């Protein structure tokens, strides 16, 4: 079996599809450069990025699929999971080989995988919309650092831009080393350098604005008061707010 190697970008993925249709090598294995371990007997094919080719594939897809499905393909790509790249590749090839409407075939393994992975990514995006907790810093910017399972920052942009149109904010992906900064007019991608900082999800206490502590305190109070102890159900609680997200949540931090 031939192994296709691409650089892990969306453009690279589309170019791989293009090259496959040009060569028709039969079933292939798709790997990113990072994953690839050279072996003795594999036939290798390295995919070179070419934006014209990628654009043709994307255009073809957009004509075949309705908007909901192009978004699903994008979401599944953002999952950055190795097996999802393979399934995406298989699905796109399957779509081009069949008449319009083939994406409804949930009996096909690749189609179902992409649909389910897209759902997972959307869920992570929705959780970030819910669990991000801004802290008001002394220089007037609302800051929050996150490390989501999937690369959901591009999906969050519109929501936060529309919602917090009258305040400056930064959402920073600590794991992937980039963030979004809104300066009251537009959103920009930024990169920051952290020096000697251990906890990057929250700014240091001394750099917070004056009233920040009060509102954190009030929010914790509210969280306690609104609970009904007679109905306690920790299993359900943890199901809704998995422990890996607790580090973001103001209401889950211990009192200073």
């Amino acid at each position: 079996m031939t192994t296709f190697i691409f650089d892990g970008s969306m453009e690279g993925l589309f170019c791989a599809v293009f090259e496959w249709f040009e060569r028709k090598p039969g079933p292939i294995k798709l790997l990113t450069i990072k994953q690839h371990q050279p072996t003795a007997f594999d036939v290798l094919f390295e995919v070179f990025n070419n934006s014209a080719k990628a654009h043709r594939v994307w255009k073809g897809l957009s004509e075949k699929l309705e908007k909901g499905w192009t978004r699903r393909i994008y979401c599944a790509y953002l999952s950055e999971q190795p097996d999802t790249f393979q399934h995406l590749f298989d699905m796109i090839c399957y779509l081009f080989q069949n008449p319009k409407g083939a994406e409804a075939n949930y009996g096909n393994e690749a189609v179902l995988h992409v649909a389910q992975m897209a759902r997972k990514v959307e869920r992570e995006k929705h959780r970030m919309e819910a669990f991000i907790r801004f802290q008001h810093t002394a220089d007037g910017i609302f800051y929050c650092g996150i490390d989501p399972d999937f690369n959901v920052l591009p999906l969050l942009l519109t929501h936060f831009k529309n919602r917090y149109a009258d305040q400056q904010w930064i959402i920073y992906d600590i794991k992937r080393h980039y963030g979004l900064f809104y300066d009251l007019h537009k959103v920009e991608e930024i990169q920051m350098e952290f020096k000697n900082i251990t906890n990057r999800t929250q700014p240091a206490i001394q750099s917070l604005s004056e009233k920040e502590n009060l509102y954190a305190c009030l929010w914790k109070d509210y969280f306690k008061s609104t609970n009904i102890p007679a109905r306690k159900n920790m299993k359900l609680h943890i199901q809704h707010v998995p422990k890996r997200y607790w580090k973001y949540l103001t209401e889950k931090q211990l009192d200073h």
Partner: protein
Amino acid sequence: MSERIREKLSILADAAKYDVSCSSSGSTRKNDNKGLGNGHNSGICHTYTEDGRCVSLLKILLTNHCIFDCAYCVSRKSNDITRAAFTVDEVVELTMNFYRRNFIEGLFLSSGIFKNADFTMERLLRVVKKLRLEERYNGYIHLKTIPGASEDLIREAGLYADRMSINLEMPTESGLKLLAPEKTHKEVIDPLKLVQNQIVQFKDEKKLIKNVPTFVPAGQSTQMVIGATPETDKEIMQTADAFYKNFSLRRVYYSGYIPISNDSRLPILGSQPPLVRENRLYQTDWLMRFYGFNVNELLNDANPHLDIDIDPKLSWALRNLQFFPIDINVASYKMILRVPGIGVGSAKKIVQARKFGRLRIDQLQKIGIAYNRAKYFIRCSDSPMQLREYQNTQIKSFILAESQSKYLKNDIQQLILF
């Protein structure tokens, strides 16, 4: 200053928590004035309390002073509790600052009745007007309609709120008479009708004129307390059904009564809230709204109560085995929805996928149906041949034996001999 506001927030959030309505969905309000906040159509739950309920709104009372003495309510006049009241500015400031930090999706504002209905409603109106007009706040607002407030005030409030609600409190008029002699269902029905008519009227105008302001875009809801009075599940769900139909309500909430008083008319202090029953009622509610069930199919004179050990959909299927098994590859969408173990999402996927070839068990499992439950009610292309037909009691015991419901932990299984 900060100590006082902390105390107030604790008292007034505590008093508001028995109102279970939490949804923040359905708002189409857009941030078009470069202010703060933008509606999110499906709503967002920002956190969950330890009892597993979602927190999406800052749910508070303006005050817990009240002139009424309803036996089921913590804020009743005769109850000896600390009383407090927010000022308009305090509520506005709390809402804005919580919203800015992405703590909440919006404000849920209710109130005890002080002086009279109009005086209270007028205060609530001042809060929402200040938020919308002065602070340019476009987040969600859920406002309580105060029973007995004047029509003009209710109409004006509807221009600023996203959802309005008014609680039925008890599922039947007789139950309400028993616990809150000063209240009637009519007091609830009139404002519901008024707001409903306004919503329809604004929608009609919107078709003709483009710039009609929104009026309660997320609709109305109501709440009933369950288990405080001896109503049957049938009575509860029929009331709910009638309110869904007559007032196009978005939601009816069922709140299991949590004992808070020594009143002899009510369950004694310390008794468990009816959590399982509440859960079964919500399941029935969903079956009515999303699964095409009629309330009389699920609850009727022969079955006035929902089963506690199995869910209402399974219970219906076991009573109506003559419709099953159905063939997944040919049955209508409507019938597939009625199979226990298949939800709306899976049913839709099945209907689409079967156009490409007959579906097998492994495909159904991957699509996400609860196959171990559904297998007694369906046939697909590789279903094993079955020589004998099972009785409904047998199917029930098979399913119960496999299920890991948290409700059944202490249940004693009765022996089945045949």
